[in-house]
C-alpha cells in the first residue's frame, strides 16, 4: 500500500492564494483568480486547503525556510528622549564618595531629644 502521497492541486498556487489573502481578497475572489489561471475549485476547498497548509507538520529536514521578517516596534517615549539627548563628548562623572554607601547602614539619627528636662518641684 505504498505510493505517492496525496497532493492538492492548489499546492502550486499556495503563494498566489497567500498573496491574495494578504491583499484582503475574499475567498470567492481567489476562486475566480484561480479559475483565470486554469484551476477549477470551490470556495470551501480553497479555505480548507489554506487551513490544512497552516497546520502542516513537516518531516525532519523538509521544513520550509522561515521568512525573516523585520521586527518593528513602536518607539517608547524614553527611547525618544534618548534620541533627543545630545551626544556627550565626555563620560558622566563618577558617583560622589560622599553619597550614601549602599553597603553600610545609615547612621542612627536621633529624632527624640536625648536629654530630659526635669521641672522643679515635680516630686519633691
Amino acid at each position, binding site marked *: 500500500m505504498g505510493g505517492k502521497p496525496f497532493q492538492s492541486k492548489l499546492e502550486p498556487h499556495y503563494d498566489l492564494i497567500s498573496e491574495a489573502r494578504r491583499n484582503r481578497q475574499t475567498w470567492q475572489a481567489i476562486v475566480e483568480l484561480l479559475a483565470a489561471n486554469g484551476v477549477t475549485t470551490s470556495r470551501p476547498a480553497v479555505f480548507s486547503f489554506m487551513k490544512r497548509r497552516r497546520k502542516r507538520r513537516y518531516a525532519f529536514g523538509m521544513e520550509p525556510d522561515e521568512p525573516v521578517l523585520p521586527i518593528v516596534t513602536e518607539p517608547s517615549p524614553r527611547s525618544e528622549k534618548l534620541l533627543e539627548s545630545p551626544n556627550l563628548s565626555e563620560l558622566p562623572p563618577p558617583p560622589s564618595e560622599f553619597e550614601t554607601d549602599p553597603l553600610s547602614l545609615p547612621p542612627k539619627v*536621633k529624632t*527624640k531629644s*536625648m*536629654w*530630659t*528636662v*526635669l521641672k*522643679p*518641684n515635680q*516630686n519633691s
Partner: protein
Amino acid sequence: MLEGILAWARFAGVPAAIVDCDGEHLTLSKRFPEAAFVDATRSRDEFLQLMSSMPDSPLSVADFPAQATEFLLDSMQSLRVLDALESNGTRITVLMFAADDPTATASMAKTYRALGNRVDYIVVKNPARFRSRLFDESALAELFRNSKVPVIELPAITATTLQQINAASAELRRHLTFAEAVKRQGLHQMCRFEIEHFLNRVYVQCEDAARVLLPDPALIKNKVTRLPELLARKPVDEFQPLNIHE
C-alpha cells in the same frame, strides 16, 4: 550623689536636664523614669550627638559609667568639647569621688591631668565607700583645698532605712527617690527622719556649691532654711565637762 543634686535642683526651683549613660547601674533612669538611657560611651558618634544636643538648661546632669573615664577624656580632647561648650557659655563640673582604691585614685588623677582648671570640681565623700584618709592626705586634695573646691559629704544612711525604701519601692513596683520616700507614711518615722536629715545635708551642701553647679547662684528660687546657731550642739568643756550653765 547625682540623685541628691537633682533633688536639690527640684527643691531650689532650678530646671535640670538629665540623661543616664550608665547602662550597668541605670541609677538615674530607675529613679527618674523621665530620664532616657543613652549609651553615649558606646562610640564617639553617640557621645558627640549627646554633647551637641545639650539643652539650654541652667543645670545638665549626665551619669557616665566609672570605667568610661579614658573614653570620655579622649573624646573630649579630640572633639574639643571644652572649647565648644566654652563658646556657648557652658562649663562642666566634674564630681570627684574620694576613694581609697588605686583604680579610683588613678581615674581621678587622669581626669585632673586631662581637664585641669578648665572645668570645675566637686569632691564627694561617701562614707560607705571612703574610710581611710588616703585621699585627704594626697597632694590633689591639698590642691583642691587651696582652690576652694566644694566638698559634699554624704551622710551615712542605715541599712534598715535603705531596706525600708527598697521594700516600699518593691510594693510600688518602681524605684523611689529619697525625696519621694521621705513622704511615705509606710516608712517608720525614724527612717523618714534619717532620710530627711540626709536630704537636708545634701541640700545645704549643694546650695553652698551652687557657684559651680549653676551659671549664677541667683537662679536659686527656694533657699534652704538653715538651723540657727542656737540649735547647734554646744561644745563641751574638756576640762570641766559638767560645768553647764543655761
